[in-house]
């Protein structure tokens, strides 16, 4: 090698081959300086620490989280010597390092997406009341997933659940979740809900859920999205972009399906209410009928009294016409021909006498 004379281009190519062999991919941590985007496509910055500095290059499409000068980051990169002899790192992925920087990056992306209206309440769709077919995106080995499945099995039945097993932490996580979202959203039979769940973790653990591409994919999902990531106090941008946000994976299960015991109890209560209503209606009808019967009886009674009164009056009139009563008042009944010499019969109250008419004279 000592005697080999190389052309400049060959030397650069050989150096790059050696670098690729020795450091196909390296993770380097440092502070960002001189961050700039050229032509809306190419990103340049320097990565430095107390004594060293190295130039970095990447495309904007690889930039999944906001970066700014002064931010401490970890880059996954390949070292490269450019054709003009400048050494740089070609960055494949970049993520903020440390809570403060993660928080700063979170706030920057949140403001940007908020300004675009990705988190507005008007975009939110409601969960179906009783879903039949749902999709779940999670790591099937995660405790949060186990909790979710246990709770939906305890609460409901007859649900078809398709699960996409993905990484929910690390540099690959967001891409895998995006692929799973695309997979379910392009199914011929669209799930009624896509549920994205992951248990608790540090801000760094949950950083996959603050990935810009993932957040946009959730916001544009055809199926209704339900996201339950971390603990109750954790908020990720995926939560904010979802149609429905659950505090935890367990809470996501509670929001997704009703409690069958509660449903049965409620249905029983309603049917019992209907039974009582039927009884009330029967009682009411009985009351109405009773009232009508009473009215009929009253009318009959009134008629009876009226008839009785009429009868009594007639009885009195009749009694007044009784000849015995007239005789009792001192009058007498005369029977026979009232002409002189004729024999007549005179009836008084107490006796009947025979008499002869001596003389008849007209009163007029």
């Amino acid at each position, binding site marked *: 090698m000592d005697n080999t004379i190389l052309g400049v281009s060959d030397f650069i190519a050989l150096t790059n081959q050696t670098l690729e062999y020795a450091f196909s991919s390296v993770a380097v941590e440092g502070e960002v300086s001189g961050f700039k985007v050229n032509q809306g496509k190419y990103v340049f910055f320097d990565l430095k620490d107390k004594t060293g500095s190295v130039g970095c290059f990447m495309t904007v499409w690889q930039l999944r989280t906001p970066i700014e000068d002064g931010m401490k980051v970890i880059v996954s990169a390949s070292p490269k010597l450019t054709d003009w002899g400048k050494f740089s790192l070609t960055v494949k992925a970049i993520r903020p390092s440390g809570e403060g920087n993660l928080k700063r990056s979170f706030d920057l992306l949140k403001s940007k997406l908020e300004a675009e209206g990705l988190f507005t309440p008007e975009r939110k769709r409601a969960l179906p009341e*009783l879903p*039949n077919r749902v999709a779940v995106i999670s790591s*099937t080995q995660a405790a949060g997933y186990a909790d979710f*499945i246990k709770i*939906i*099995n305890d609460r*409901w*039945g*007859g*649900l*078809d*659940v*398709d*699960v*996409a*097993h*993905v*990484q929910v932490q690390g540099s*690959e996580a967001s891409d*895998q*979740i995006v*692929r*799973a979202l695309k*997979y379910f959203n392009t199914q011929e039979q669209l799930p009624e809900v896509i549920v994205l769940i992951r248990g608790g973790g540090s801000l760094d653990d949950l950083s996959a859920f603050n990935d810009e591409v993932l957040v946009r994919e959730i916001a544009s999902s055809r199926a209704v999205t339900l996201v339950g990531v971390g603990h109750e106090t954790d908020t990720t941008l995926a939560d904010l972009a979802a149609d429905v946000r659950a505090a935890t994976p367990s809470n996501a299960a509670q929001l997704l399906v009703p409690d*069958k015991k509660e*449903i*049965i109890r409620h*249905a*029983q209560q*309603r*049917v019992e*209410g*209907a*039974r009582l*209503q*039927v009884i009330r*209606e*029967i009682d009411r*009808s009985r009351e109405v009928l009773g009232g009508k019967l009473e009215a009929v009886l009253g009318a009959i009674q009134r008629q009876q009294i009226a008839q009785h009164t009429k009868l009594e009056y007639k009885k009195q009139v009749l009694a007044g016409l009784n000849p015995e009563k007239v005789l009792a008042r001192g009058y007498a009944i005369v029977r026979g021909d009232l002409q002189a010499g004729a024999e007549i019969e005179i009836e008084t109250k107490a006796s009947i006498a025979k008499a002869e008419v001596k003389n008849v004279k007209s009163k007029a």
Partner: protein
Amino acid sequence: MSKAKPSITQKMKELDELLTWFDSDDFELEKAVDTYKQAEELVRAIENDLMEVKNTISVVSERFDREKE
């Protein structure tokens, strides 16, 4: 062709309709007992379904750890 067995959701919907009838203007005492019995049977059927029917959980075979070729 035999009629497909109604799902829990369909039964719940049917129960809702029956119970709503009790509060509607269409309510008639003559029909109330039969409707009540229907609702009672439906609750029993839903209860049985909910207690017996299990969820079907299947992990899809698709892999998400690499870009689809």
